[in-house]
């Protein structure tokens, strides 16, 4: 068993919750982050949840490592009584057509499926966001069917537009900025995952669920228009666990 607490340099502490990717570990991590949020400790600057741990950044001039360990231990004792706030499910519209889906046929061919079958599998079921990273607002999601798991491109593209929905092995993700990338791009969402000028710059939070909904090119354009006009409302709902 790995250590529960470990320093990450002299300004951060890592709290381990497990060694594998699992929904249970994720639930404990979410609950702990919620506790951190509620307890508003003066010495704590911020925290970063991951697949298996939470790393807490603190002010080393105000609290020593030994003391922050104690504080984190105290928080952990409250974990059991913690009522987890209900998770949010965000419905993400995706256009799986034409120039938005340069690798869709390749992915279908790879699995000897039709394009429609790939879309059906990809839009079927919930994906859990374990963490955000890579670029601002980029969700690392788990829960994709092995039936459409496809290796990365041999030659990464120098530019993948923001909103592109991709597959890399058993992961699926959404590019949050225009960046180079090697994922198999099978569609694009009109939603804006990251906008520094928004009150919540990131569309998603770790712990959110995502479900993809297939839309036409016309609907894609319509949602874009509504986003510009600020009349679009994100389609989300409470997940019953």
């Amino acid at each position, binding site marked *: 068993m790995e250590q529960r607490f470990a320093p990450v*340099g002299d300004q951060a502490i890592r709290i381990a919750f497990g060694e594998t990717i699992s929904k249970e570990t994720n639930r404990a991590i979410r609950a702990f982050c919620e506790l951190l949020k509620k307890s508003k400790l003066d010495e704590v600057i*911020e925290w*970063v949840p*991951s697949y298996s741990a939470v790393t807490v*950044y603190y002010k080393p001039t105000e609290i020593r490592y*030994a003391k922050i360990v104690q504080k984190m231990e105290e928080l952990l004792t409250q974990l059991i009584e913690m009522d987890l706030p209900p998770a949010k499910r965000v419905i993400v519209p995706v256009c799986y057509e034409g120039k938005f889906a340069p690798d869709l046929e390749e992915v279908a061919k790879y699995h000897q499926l039709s394009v429609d079958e790939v879309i059906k599998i990809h839009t079927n079921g919930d994906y859990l966001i374990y963490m*955000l990273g890579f670029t601002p607002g980029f969700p*690392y999601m788990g829960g994709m069917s092995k039936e459409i798991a496809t290796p990365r491109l041999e030659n990464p593209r120098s530019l993948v537009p923001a909103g592109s929905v991709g597959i890399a092995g058993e992961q699926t993700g959404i590019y949050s900025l225009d960046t180079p990338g090697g994922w198999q791009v099978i569609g694009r969402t009109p939603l804006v995952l990251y906008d520094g000028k928004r009150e919540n710059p990131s569309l998603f939070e770790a712990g959110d669920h995502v479900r993809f909904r297939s839309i036409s090119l016309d609907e894609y354009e319509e949602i874009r228009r509504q986003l510009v006009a600020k009349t679009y409302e994100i389609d989300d709902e409470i997940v019953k666990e």
Partner: protein
Amino acid sequence: MSTPLLKVEKPGLMTTIQDLGRTGYQQYGIVVSGAMDSFAVRVANILVGNEESDAALEVTMMGPHIEFLADTVLAIGGADLSASLDDKRIPPWKSVYVKKGQVLSFGKPEHGMRAYVAVNGGIEVEPLLGSKSTYVKAKMGGIEGRELQKGDVLNGRPSSKEVLQKVAGLVVSRELLPDYISSQPIRVIGGPDETAFTKSGLETFYSGEYECTRDVDRMGYRLLGPVIEHKETADILSDAVTMGTIQVPSNGQPIILLADRQTSGGYARIGTVISVDLPRLAQQAPGGKIRFQSISIEKAEQLLRNREKALFQLSLGVGSSTQQ
């Protein structure tokens, strides 16, 4: 009042606006950025009578030429890149009165990699998520999220002439400054993935000499030296990394993550450089040699507290009326 203060005549190799970084949003994958040598920018700010967190220019190796459009006081911290004001050399770590029309330029890099130009009142740009720091990769902060270009005009808010005259001429005592040229090892707090390495891999890391490759940028430093052996794999489940975290990918060559690091990484973390040694690291240029030494968290904390105390003393000294 905000007023045009600087005009960029030549941008230099890479000049960006930086403060102490964009904290509080790492859980959303938003990169912290900020000054590579945060100690230097804090001291430079103190010397011109600013808040330590005010925005300044980070100048890299080959500095810019900048014309001043108003009177102010400037101070340069960090690397010695042979700064001159109208052809007259100005030393680092000293606040200097600048008259409207004077030109700041840089020459041969004497030592170090990054200098900070702080101006009284700070540099005014629209903050993004609480910070003015530039993160070029995601086009965030600074001016349009990019490096400075020829013709850019930056605003500032310099104080009245009386105040400026009082602030000018301050110096920092030598003892307070980190020994940038020291060949002492860079000190490291081990983990959290020490168990991913063999005993001999850890010994190699703490005994070998590593050279900074040409791949040294704001995101991180790739080093080259004796191969650090993993037990099985170099890959970990993606997890948080911080300023100074040393990752070792499967080729066994360490990468030290710095200001523009991503919020998480997928390679085993052998350790993290302690805060007080980060300035010295951030000033290493390609070809620089580094050794690592293990240190306890308690000792690192004490060193950090001592440094913060000294910085606090410095800011008090500047705030008082007795001038050096």
